[in-house]
């Protein structure tokens, strides 16, 4: 299946979890927050939160800013 992560298409096995997505893309799960289709995915649910075809994900973290 395909999902969009930070504006880019990503190919994933069907039914992949958020945790699997983060691991596959080499994100440090402890240092990111994830939004799926405009809703925050709570960190403690990354393992069970299953993705669906066409999901739009934002993976963000803190950067320098004023």
């Amino acid at each position: 299946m395909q999902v969009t992560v930070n504006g880019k298409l990503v190919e994933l096995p069907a039914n992949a979890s958020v945790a699997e997505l983060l691991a596959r893309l080499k994100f440090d799960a402890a240092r990111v927050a994830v939004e799926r289709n405009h809703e925050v995915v709570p960190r403690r649910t990354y393992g069970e939160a299953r993705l669906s075809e066409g999901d739009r994900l934002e993976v963000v973290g803190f950067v320098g800013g004023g």
Partner: protein
Amino acid sequence: MNSDPFVLAGKSYRSRLLVGTGKYKDLDETRAATKASGAEIVTVAVRRLDPKPGEPSLLDALAGYTLLPNTAGCYTADEAIRTARLARELGMTEFVKLEVIGDEITLFPDAEATLAAARVLVKEGFVVLPYTNDDPIMAKKLEDAGCAAVMPLAAPIGSGLGIRNPYNLRMVLDAVKVPVIVDAGVGTASDAAEALELGCHAVLMNTGIAGAKHPVLMAEAMRLGVEAGRKAFLAGRMPRRLHAHASSPEVGLIE
């Protein structure tokens, strides 16, 4: 300074200077300037990440500071609310520096959208610190919405123009009971001092330090400016007079 703490959302801080962490050339400079500023609260932005395992992290450089995530770059209430929720999920704080920008030329706040976002975020338990105009009416509305402080601009973000309307800031101070934190426009140490002399409770800045030729030295200057301004405010300045008033005795002069 401990006898005169800066109290924000029920917590006391020694420093009345809040600093941003953007625009530094590297993390070492970020760390050194932040340390020299004496700030305890530092702002950070929320952005899409590229995975870069093993790269030194901003969060390591800022260990020990109170993080104040911002919603910079958001042009609608909805974007700002989503950004604040993501910031909270990053797990470190309920604080949010709420910015809803009106246009990219002025970077002035969209007052209507800022207020709408503030109401939602306060209800969700955030400690909302909104960037706002130097407008006492708006400041009062934000206070009534439950914001923990109001953060009027001194001048446009990144402009370094200093305090363009000290009289408006005084009106904001009269209008609200929550802390007034001057946010944006401070260009040099005397601007920071002026904000505190007016009675503002704290100052937040980024470019004023990061945009200086020597940011670490300017960070120290800003710290001293804020401290000097606060002491001058507490001391109570002399009244302004049009005409001269001799400092030396006018009697006992030789003839």
